[in-house]
């Protein structure tokens, strides 16, 4: 049964994600600049960039197929939907029964497939290069992400993200070794999936070292704006999933408007802290060699397996 508060929470969650995702990006960039002793760009800079791109002409290659044109919308749609599935504000979400954790991973994979196909569509060397690298990272990151979600599912006996959050938030306050290990694995995967240092460098202009940026080199105007916005949404979605799994406190369970209202500041606070931590990670690390990435993601997978084993063996 879809309650009206549930519907409200759902709409609010997606609207909040769309509105806040660029802000999170700006916040991370600001902290990165501060940590490097630079003067920081404005917190609102990502909005200005999106505004600028939406008002620019979109230039297409002559041989671009319709796939190239629709890919940004698909990617954007996938990321917006992912933000809707992740229990950011409330666990009483109409969309939640429609898609569980496994579907969420599939959603990310779908976006990856389309952006990679679009990158190869125009036929430039960098597009293929980026698509190849993106797939290398994707096929290693997805299993690790699934294992992390499975270890959380084992604890709560459900693959529904909303159920997982409800159960975890209700458990007595204690340190779960399995969750702690899974949290580290999840951090590794998030860095790789969101093209952050040490796996990729979102600020680079060196086309030969790019992964994510190489995929989107041919995009401009509103297409690029959608992709940039989708990238911000992806970071937002990953952050929310991480918070939901490992720091579920503050998410509204009862669908009362007041609880949802209180959930917003809790979410913003948690995201702000998470953003600072991401900036710290990005400042103290250098980008690793491309062929160290498989080792890095294999480590993430291994940690996720350990988390599962810890749960099975210790029951914690």
């Amino acid at each position, binding site marked *: 049964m879809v309650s009206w508060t549930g519907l409200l929470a759902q709409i609010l969650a997606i609207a909040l994600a769309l509105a806040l995702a660029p802000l999170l990006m700006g916040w991370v960039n600001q902290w990165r600049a501060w940590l490097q002793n630079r003067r920081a760009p404005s917190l609102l800079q990502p909005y200005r960039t999106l505004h600028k791109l939406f008002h620019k002409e979109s230039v297409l290659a002559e041989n671009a197929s319709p796939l190239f044109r629709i890919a940004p919308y698909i990617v954007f749609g996938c990321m917006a939907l992912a933000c809707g599935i992740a229990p950011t504000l409330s666990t009483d979400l109409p969309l939640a029964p429609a898609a569980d954790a496994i579907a969420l991973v599939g959603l990310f994979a779908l976006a990856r497939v389309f952006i990679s196909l679009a990158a190869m569509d125009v036929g430039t060397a960098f597009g293929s290069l980026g698509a190849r690298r993106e797939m290398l990272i994707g096929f290693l990151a997805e299993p690790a992400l699934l294992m992390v979600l499975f270890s959380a599912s084992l604890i709560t006996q459900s693959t529904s993200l909303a159920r997982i959050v409800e159960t975890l938030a209700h458990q007595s306050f204690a340190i779960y070794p399995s969750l702690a290990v899974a949290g580290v694995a999840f951090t590794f995967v998030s860095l790789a999936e969101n093209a952050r*240092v040490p796996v990729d460098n979102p*600020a680079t202009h060196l086309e030969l070292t790019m992964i994510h940026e190489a995929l989107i080199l041919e995009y401009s105007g509103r297409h690029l704006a959608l992709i940039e916005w989708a990238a911000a949404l992806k970071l937002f979605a990953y952050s929310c999933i991480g918070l939901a799994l490992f720091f579920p406190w503050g998410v509204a369970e009862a669908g009362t408007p007041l609880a949802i209202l209180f959930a917003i500041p809790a979410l913003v606070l948690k995201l702000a802290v998470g953003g600072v931590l991401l900036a710290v990670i*990005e400042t103290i*690390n250098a980008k690793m*060699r491309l062929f160290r990435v498989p080792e890095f993601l294999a480590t993430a997978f291994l940690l996720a397996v350990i988390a599962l084993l810890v749960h099975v063996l210790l029951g914690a």
Partner: protein
Amino acid sequence: MDFHGLGIDFERLATPLPIWHGAVDADRWEALARAVAEARGRLVSLWAGDRRATGGGFVVSAAYAGLDGLLIAELTLDAEAPAYPDLASFFPAANRLQRAAFDLVGVAAAGAADRRPWLRHGAWPADFFPLRHDADPQARFDPQPDDYPFVPVEGDGVHEIPVGPVHAGIIEPGHFRFSVVGEKVLRLEERLGYKHKGIEKRFVGMDLDSGARLAGRVSGDSTVAHAWAYAMAAEALAGTSIPPRAAWLRALLLERERVANHLGDLGALGNDAAFGFALAQFSRLRENWQRLSRDCFGHRLLMDCVVPGGIAADLDGDAAARLLGQAADTRRAVEELKRIFDEHAGLQDRLVTTGRVTPALAARLGLAGLAGRASGQGVDLRADFPWAPYDRLAVQACTHLNGDVAARVATRFAEVFESLRLIEDILAQLPAGEIHTPVLARPDAVGAGWVEGWRGQVFAALETDAAGRIARCHCHDPSWQNWPVLEHAVIGNIVADFPLINKSFNLSYSGQDL
């Protein structure tokens, strides 16, 4: 004086470093190249000229560095079918220099395997040679077809990645053609020359002082080195010797230029490994450095400070104190940053073993300057032929044996500390006196200059006409020697590491395209 027993009459030019000039015939041209190669000497530069207007023919000149100093051999060629024996079989670096000489003057290297155009990108026809005296500098041509045959690499799964000349970032234009299997580089071929702007033609007819301004703009990051090499050539040609204070101040400028470039490169190298912290810190140091250069010498990059006969402006005691203070501050900061670089495991993992040029390969290909020293080639003019004021400063050449990106980083750090030491010693010992002597150009004379710039040996050759104006000026940047070695340095590395390897060499496009 005769070298290598070849019967060539070399004449010493009036330069502070030992530079010798002599005419050769075609047999001795080749014999000298062989003798220099066997004695492990190096080719410094090769250039051609056109003297038909004054009753001569075409000339081609080669400059070799050896234990005796710099030998410049000049070969006069037939006016109808100018050709000279190929040097690329002795010195691989001669390949592109010979192709450029053909594109500009139309003198061919007989027997050369590679005769593709180098500077001519279809902007002028194949039978037009812009540096010939009868070539109209105002001539305009429709774009010519430009089918440059890259060397193909074939095999299962081999494909090409063309990069540039327009890049994603704002950098100089150059085209890089990678042949790769997956991520692994099998072969890299460079195509440069996009920044050819006719500097050597522009020199013709200038007086010595205007030429100094142009020479200082050959490569913006090496303006002091190029201006000093040019000024040395002008002074040799005129028979002028500069006042001691001017020489000391020139060395001060050269070391400041070296430190500024090394600071910039170290930051950029960190940034290319996504270690943005390094870029922010080194950029701050470099910016402070350049601001003080502007305050003390009037130009952030020190352009137009070195002029024929001395230097343009004197340094007062107050400025000297500020320079000393900045040297001490910079040393403290760089020491701390070096510690961070050395202890950062992630960064070291990117740098160590990447882009390796072994000392043997470096010697065979003639890797020059800073990159050469990082590959065990202990060549540094300031230490090998210490001219005033370096004869009083006991410069230590900073060398490394590993030849990888990490070695080039370590060499930069070592050279920053050595240059800071030199700056302090220069300021402590700076003699008083004049800073400029008038230089009166002699007609129909030759001069040459040779200076250890931050990137390597910068060379200039100068000739005057009957009126004492410039008939030919050739400015040589060490990038000519090092670009071809970069092609070897990336073999076997992954494509994603190329920007880091390229930055560790940091070669000039503009300075060699001229």
